[in-house]
């Protein structure tokens, strides 16, 4: 197990390196440089700018320089405002993480409940309703859902605000309750969470149906347990294992999904930083955010695989 974890963590290094390299090449293949759009800048200023950000070096040296700095944890400077990329990402990450975690909790609660309820009432009306939600919900893009929710609940009914983030922007405000504004929190979380919730519901239902057919469930029923106890104590626990495996892809999905949702609701997270960076050819920022996202997704998958082995004693990694 330890060996497996170490091997997986080590494998992340070449993956992140490859992602960084591909991004570096793509980014420099984008037509136009970071300062080509500025007008009436004296050549001397341009030269100074290029020197400041190492843009006067040949490409291969810029690449090696970037990797060298990356190894030391230095993500470089954003062209915009000359600020540390790691600092900007750190601030955005705090917001993105809140959105991700809250959505994850929302999706897990809705998805698991729907999945269990529909499996316990197989082929009943509740089941059909839940299956319909799971099928339809999985196919509605998050920004489309966001548009509908905004039209109905923000514009027509006026229940919610749609601009900005409703949670704290800085770490130290986390426990300040006045920093949490449900009027701004609800719509982004629902928009982002319905697809994963539908996905979890599908997997949970399938897995529950499988488990409910097992002998030990029949035994539990045979000894006279109430249906609720059978489902809650005997079936759910064992049905969770396949559900866990999809948590990794779901987390990755949340990460990339938050991207558009951040744009829709003007949430100052990492996704918005990336979009702005591509528009402005902000090289260090593009690199930083991409490596950051790739790292998160890789970590999430690793965590899920490890959790899988911890929860299911039958799984052994050699």
């Amino acid at each position, binding site marked *: 197990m330890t060996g497996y974890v170490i091997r997986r963590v080590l494998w992340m290094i*070449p*993956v992140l390196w*490859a*992602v960084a390299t*591909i*991004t570096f090449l*793509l*980014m420099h*293949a*984008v*037509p136009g440089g970071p300062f080509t759009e500025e007008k009436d800048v004296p050549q001397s200023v341009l030269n100074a700018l290029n020197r400041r950000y190492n843009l006067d070096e040949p490409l291969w040296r810029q690449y090696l320089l970037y990797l060298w700095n990356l190894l030391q944890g230095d993500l470089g400077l954003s062209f915009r405002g000359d600020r540390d990329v790691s600092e900007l990402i750190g601030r955005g990450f705090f917001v993105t993480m809140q959105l991700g975690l809250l959505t994850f909790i929302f999706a897990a609660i809705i998805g698991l409940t729907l999945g269990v309820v529909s499996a316990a009432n197989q082929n009943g009306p509740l089941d059909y309703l839940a299956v319909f939600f799971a*099928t*339809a919900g*999985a*196919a*509605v*893009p998050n*920004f*489309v*859902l966001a*548009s*509908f929710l*905004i*039209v109905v609940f923000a*514009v*027509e009914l006026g229940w919610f605000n749609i601009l900005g983030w409703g949670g704290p922007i800085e770490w130290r405000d986390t426990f300040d309750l006045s920093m949490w504004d449900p009027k701004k929190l609800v719509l982004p979380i629902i928009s982002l969470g319905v697809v994963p919730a539908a996905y979890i519901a599908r997997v949970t239902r399938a897995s529950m149906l499988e488990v409910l057919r097992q002998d030990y469930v029949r035994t539990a029923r045979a000894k006279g347990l109430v249906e609720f106890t059978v489902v809650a104590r005997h079936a759910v626990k064992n049905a969770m294992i396949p559900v866990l495996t999809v948590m990794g892809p779901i987390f*990755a999905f949340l*990460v*990339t999904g938050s*991207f*558009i949702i951040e*744009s*829709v609701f003007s949430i100052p997270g990492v996704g918005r930083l*990336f*979009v702005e960076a*591509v*528009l402005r050819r902000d090289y260090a920022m*593009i690199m930083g*955010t*991409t490596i950051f*996202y*790739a790292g998160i*997704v*890789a970590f999430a998958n690793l965590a899920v695989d490890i959790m899988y082995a911890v929860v299911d004693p039958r799984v052994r990694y050699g």
Partner: protein
Amino acid sequence: MGVEAATTGLAIDLPPGRESGLWRDAFRRLLRNRLAVAGLIMLLSIIALAVGAGAIDEIARYDPDFQTHADIHEGPSTAHFFGTDNLGRDTWSRVLAGVRISLQIGLGTQVIVLALGLVVGALAAMGGRLSDNVLMRFTDIMYAFPDLLFIILMRAVLEGRDWLVLSDQRLQIMLAIGLVNWTTIARLVRGQMLALQGQDFVLAARALGARPWRIVLVHMLPNTLGPVVVAVTFGIPIAIFAEAALGFIGFSLPPPTASLGRLAKDGYNFVQLNPWFVVFPASAIALLMLCFTFLGDGLRDALDPRSR
């Protein structure tokens, strides 16, 4: 024959009469799936409408780019089924044009995905250990790349290029989406082919002296098609979503082209003033994706009855 089959358990008893092939069976199972049939019918109607609107003026009634400044931000009416936008353009005709673009991009991307996935998957499975290792590690890396980041970057790289056919913006978007989405097909094809390699009919073909490429093309590839067809069907809504997402953050086709993502974004900008403007394009995206997803679900159940 029947007795023999029962005792040896080897021979397969075919029912008398017309032989029913795998695909015919699958099609019959597909037709029994109500959601899939509904998706298929809806999809065919949408395609007929959208394609028809490109050919017959009476369907769209307005040019998608025609502006009438007299009536901007109108709600749905008989004159404008879906209302008008901020420049007085007819949303109905723009949505139809957008659906056409989305369909082109959804299907076109799958051609790229299919070509890349089949080649990489087959080479990995058939080309020996070294090529398997190299190709699958590369696939892992592409899989680890956050999709949308890659698509946006690639889109920015290709934008404004005039390299032969690549100067076409739609092709650029298809390429940007296709270049990151082939990994599922590649893994699928590799897995299927590795499993097929040990099968008797492949061994028999080899024993008969068939060349490797003939074995791959004639004997193995057709047998991998079932899951690939399903994956491609699910890939279409993913590509439609990717294009719409690109449009929504301003990286899709440049204005005034009416791609669905851009329409939704334009509508979203005026959501306080005219909610209809965002509702119709957004519904079109959702409807298209739903149809393909229902169809994909149905195909999966039909082609692999075990997965139910």
